[in-house]
């Protein structure tokens, strides 16, 4: 710019502008003016379909009134999950704005009552906008803003009695879940959570304030428990301020879920489990966890399902805090959220001999009249397999083999079964795998189909040729790589050598299913696992004529008027292909009247009801851990007209790392049988038998938002 010459232009050289340049400008400006006038004329007078306001001057909006969730009751009608109402104080921003002082006086008086400041309240209720930073109200301006929950009754009365002093302030009732039994049956009940964006995508009818079941019965029966939200219609000005109230639709509370759980039996199971954990620990065992299942074998309905450790579902009400959740999921907490009774799977040990015996008898590999050897040890494929404590019992029949829980008795026929199958494979035929087939018939390896979320029930497992090969195909590269590298990261030389040897074997022979594997499975070891619930289903088949139930907990859906909307019928999945006479033989062999020392009967020697029940212990060895203690029992035994052994309850117990079945699970289940059968106490369940009729429920008193 420095090159510019700023001296004034001499005036005498000023030049008139050429008219051509001006003409261009004038034409441009004039055409703009004419265009505007023309278009305006068209828009206002000529246009045929003039645009019109379709929304009306007022439009309606709805405030969602959340429906209280349905309650869950036990088989006697006693609540397991109940509703409790809390008083919530709300302030309407709209109403306050219409006051001459914009509600300053109301907020000041309210702040006094609630022990807060008027400015904090004002900030809380002012709708958020680019000019209003947080804290602010994220909802619509016409929605009353909840400013205090669980307000003391003094505040409720103060606001209620001086309504004229508190325009726009209201006390509303909100319903929250309540657990009268504390942590009772928490794993079965589950919990709810505020809905997420993903939930809303799945079901657009959900409103943002809805709670949704995310675990246990709360999840699997969410649709009947949730109810239907009500709504308060408000009329809005075009700016979104409410100018009047419209219709009100009351919410409909969710229906009641009646379950087959008996709260008293459940409580007894939980306390006996906790007691056993304490006792086993006192006896020097780790006893890290345990589970109990009480089932009606004739219907597959679950009467109790206890797991230890447990948690308090109350922590999840209104949203669990991050700190509390971290505490529950910390490694030191030992996974209290896991429902071990249903979702845990463990080696069943000798309790599995029910299935092995069924298979051997059914396929005539042994019979009930002959004796077979029970040596202290047998050698299979060059490996020595011993009895528990290497006991030598000579030649015995199946009844004694079950009673004394002889392992070697079962090794030989199952090893022979394996060799016969190998011969078939060598001829290019399919192996028969009788034991695996029988395990599958008893429900091992498939989800039990209980009415809980699919992810909260264990399927159990067993090994066979096909799965062994599939696993090897999936992992052989890793096995062979490990065999080559020799685990250089492992500092312990002995471990390194063992792991390398194992990897070498897996690399070359990992696909091979061996005779020893079949022998392991015969006594519920190796890769065989079951959940306590699955074991209860299997033993139910023993005393119900061979029926495999899909267990159920839900029994009926009852509406607010107390009327049964739907009875939930258990599903019969299958029948085990075992003759009733064999089932009778096995059940009779294990009757506690025999007083087998190694069976659970030991704990029941002195009780009068000893002859009415039977059971089978299990002591499962787990690599690197103390033994898992199992006991599966049934009773009180009745003979049906056809002579079949039948029972009213199946009770299965498991304590991890607690020693033999007789020492831990034995006394644990005895306390439960004492209660069920009313030994030295009134029976905890009416008539010492599962409930057969639904409880009568009173019509509910509606808890709602208004």
């Amino acid at each position, binding site marked *: 710019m420095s090159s510019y010459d700023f001296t*004034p232009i001499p005036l005498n050289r000023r030049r008139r502008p050429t008219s051509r*340049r001006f003409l261009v*400008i004038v034409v441009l400006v004039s055409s703009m003016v004419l265009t505007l006038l023309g278009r305006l004329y068209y828009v*206002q007078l000529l246009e045929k379909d003039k645009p019109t*306001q379709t929304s009306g001057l007022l439009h309606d909006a709805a405030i969602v009134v959340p429906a209280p969730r349905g309650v869950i009751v036990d088989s006697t009608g006693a609540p397991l999950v109940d509703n409790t109402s809390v008083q919530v104080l709300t302030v309407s921003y709209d109403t306050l704005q219409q006051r001459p002082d914009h509600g300053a006086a109301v907020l000041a008086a309210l702040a006094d009552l609630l022990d807060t400041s008027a400015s904090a309240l004002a900030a809380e209720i002012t709708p958020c906008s680019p000019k209003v930073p947080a804290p602010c109200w994220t909802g619509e301006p016409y929605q009353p803003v909840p400013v205090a929950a669980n307000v003391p009754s003094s505040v409720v009365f103060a606001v209620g009695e001086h309504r004229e002093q508190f325009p726009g302030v209201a006390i509303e009732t909100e319903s929250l879940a309540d657990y009268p039994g504390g942590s009772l049956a928490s794993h079965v009940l589950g919990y709810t959570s505020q809905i997420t964006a993903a939930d809303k995508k799945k079901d657009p009818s959900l409103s943002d304030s809805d709670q949704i079941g995310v675990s246990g019965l709360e999840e699997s029966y969410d649709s009947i428990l949730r109810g239907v939200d009500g709504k308060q219609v408000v009329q809005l000005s075009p700016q979104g301020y409410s100018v009047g109230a419209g219709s009100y639709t009351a919410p409909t509370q969710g229906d009641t879920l009646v379950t087959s759980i008996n709260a008293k039996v459940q409580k007894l199971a939980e306390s006996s489990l906790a007691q056993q954990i304490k006792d086993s620990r006192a006896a020097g065992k780790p006893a890290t966890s345990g589970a109990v299942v009480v089932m009606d074998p004739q219907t597959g309905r679950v009467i109790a399902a206890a797991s230890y450790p447990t948690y308090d579902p109350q922590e999840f009400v209104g949203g669990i805090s991050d700190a509390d959740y971290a505490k529950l999921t910390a490694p030191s907490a030992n996974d209290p959220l896991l429902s071990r009774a249903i979702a845990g799977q463990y080696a069943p040990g000798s309790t599995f001999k029910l299935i092995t015996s069924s298979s051997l008898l059914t396929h005539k590999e042994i019979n009930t009249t002959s004796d077979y050897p029970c040596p202290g040890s047998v050698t299979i494929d060059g490996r020595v397999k011993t009895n528990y404590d290497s006991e030598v019992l000579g030649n015995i029949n199946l009844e004694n083999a079950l009673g004394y829980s002889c392992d070697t008795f079962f090794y030989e026929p199952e090893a022979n079964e394996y060799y016969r199958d190998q011969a078939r494979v060598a001829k290019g035929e399919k192996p028969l795998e009788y034991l695996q087939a029988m395990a599958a018939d008893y429900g091992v390896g498939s989800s039990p189909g209980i009415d809980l979320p699919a992810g909260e029930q264990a399927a159990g497992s067993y090994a066979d040729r096909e799965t062994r090969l599939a696993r090897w195909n999936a992992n052989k590269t890793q096995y062979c790589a490990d065999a080559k590298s020799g685990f250089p990261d492992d500092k312990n030389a002995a471990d390194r050598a063992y792991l390398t040897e194992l990897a070498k074997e897996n690399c070359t022979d990992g696909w091979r299913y061996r005779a020893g594997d079949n022998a392991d499975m015969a006594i519920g070891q190796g890769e065989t696992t079951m959940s306590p619930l699955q074991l209860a289903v299997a033993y139910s088949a023993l005393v119900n004529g061979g029926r495999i139930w899909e267990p159920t907990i839900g029994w009926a859906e009852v509406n607010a008027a107390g009327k049964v909307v739907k009875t939930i019928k258990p599903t019969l999945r299958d029948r085990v292909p075992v003759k009733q006479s064999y089932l009778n033989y096995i059940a009779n062999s294990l009757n506690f009247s025999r007083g087998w020392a190694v069976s659970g009967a030991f704990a029941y020697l002195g009780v009068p009801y000893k002859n009415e029940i039977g059971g089978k212990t299990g002591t499962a060895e787990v690599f690197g851990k103390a033994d898992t203690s199992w006991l599966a029992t049934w009773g009180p035994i009745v003979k049906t007209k056809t002579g079949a052994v039948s029972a009213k309850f199946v009770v299965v117990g498991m304590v991890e790392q607690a020693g033999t079945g007789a020492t831990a699970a034995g006394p644990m289940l005895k306390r439960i049988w004492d209660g069920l059968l009313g030994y030295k106490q009134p029976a905890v369940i009416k008539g010492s038998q599962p409930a057969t009729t639904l409880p009568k429920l009173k019509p509910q008193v509606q808890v709602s938002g208004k």
Partner: protein
Amino acid sequence: MSSVLSARDPRAPFSLTLGEPARVRRRGFDGVLAAAALALALCGAVLVWAATRDVSRAAGGNPNGFLYRHLVNILIAGGLAVLASRLDLRMLRVTGPVLYVLGVLGLLAVFAVGSTINGAHAWITLGAGFEVQPSEFMKLGLIIGLAVLFSVRARHREHLPPTTGDVLLALILIALPLGMVMLQPDLGSAMVLAAASFGVLIAAGVRARWTIGLILATVLVAILVVKTGMLADYQLARFASFTHPDKDLQGAAYNVHQAQIAIANGGLFGTGLFHGPQTNGGFVPEQQTDFVFSVAGEEFGLLGGAVLIALFAVLCWRGLRIARRADRTGQLIAVGIVCWFAFQAFQNIGMNIGLMPVTGLPLPFVSYGGSSMFAQGLALGVLEGIRRHSLAED
């Protein structure tokens, strides 16, 4: 007394208004121009009041708040106009480059400390609820800057068209603020800057091949800008809603649709002041600023709208009249200002009645808003100053 230089003496370095003969001072004022501007501003006050009364009351505010602030803005703008009219034209030649540089600095400041309103990063917040939009003042800065460039560079070859060098220099001067405003992105202001510059170029007598070339180049750049995604999403949506007005009535086209409902309500005579349901209902967003014309359309009908357009026509007529009589610098400035007002009014009213795509631009003198009102006041003052100066020279 003879030793004192008279204001009319050509030898005087700067003419001062003090001591001017009374005859000149009287004639140095274009009453029609001022009256048209004042009439527009007062119409604006009524329209702003009508647009904000009910909505403010419903929101719990003072129903007359916008009116009061608008009247204060008018007073300040009037003051600025009087001050600017006192500036001598030769003073403007000196301050022209300064104004231009200040404008560019203001735009730069927006990038550093600016705030975003309605999608454009075009504002500097001064605190206490005051915001300045430097692009409004840039319009005047660019016009005067260009005018000074052409008049100073061409001082010795006035009868010939500007040289290629002059035009290229001018294009650089135009491109700098234009680019910065585009980046904000404030498409409306960019279009006004381009229109005003175009007017100055034509008035400066650039050759026809330049004019045609520039128009072609603009079209090309516009296509490139759309294709390469330089426009913000909201701007593209507005263009899309302009070409497909029935699509997305709740989204991008909502504003225009609501404004057109309001205007269609008006008919020949309008619904009457304060009786427009669309206006009172607050259906038209930004109705006191960019969509103020829709208030006139609804409550005063075709007649009211035509009166506003007529007032703008008068404004342009008087501005061009001043330009015809002014010296070269004044002429270029006056044409630039007229093109500014004319194009901005056309663009604004055009988008209200569905003739132009929506870009955030106020209606000159009418819309609520301080920055634009003050810049227009200054421009009006400059026009009056040019007139007074050229009369003084006759």
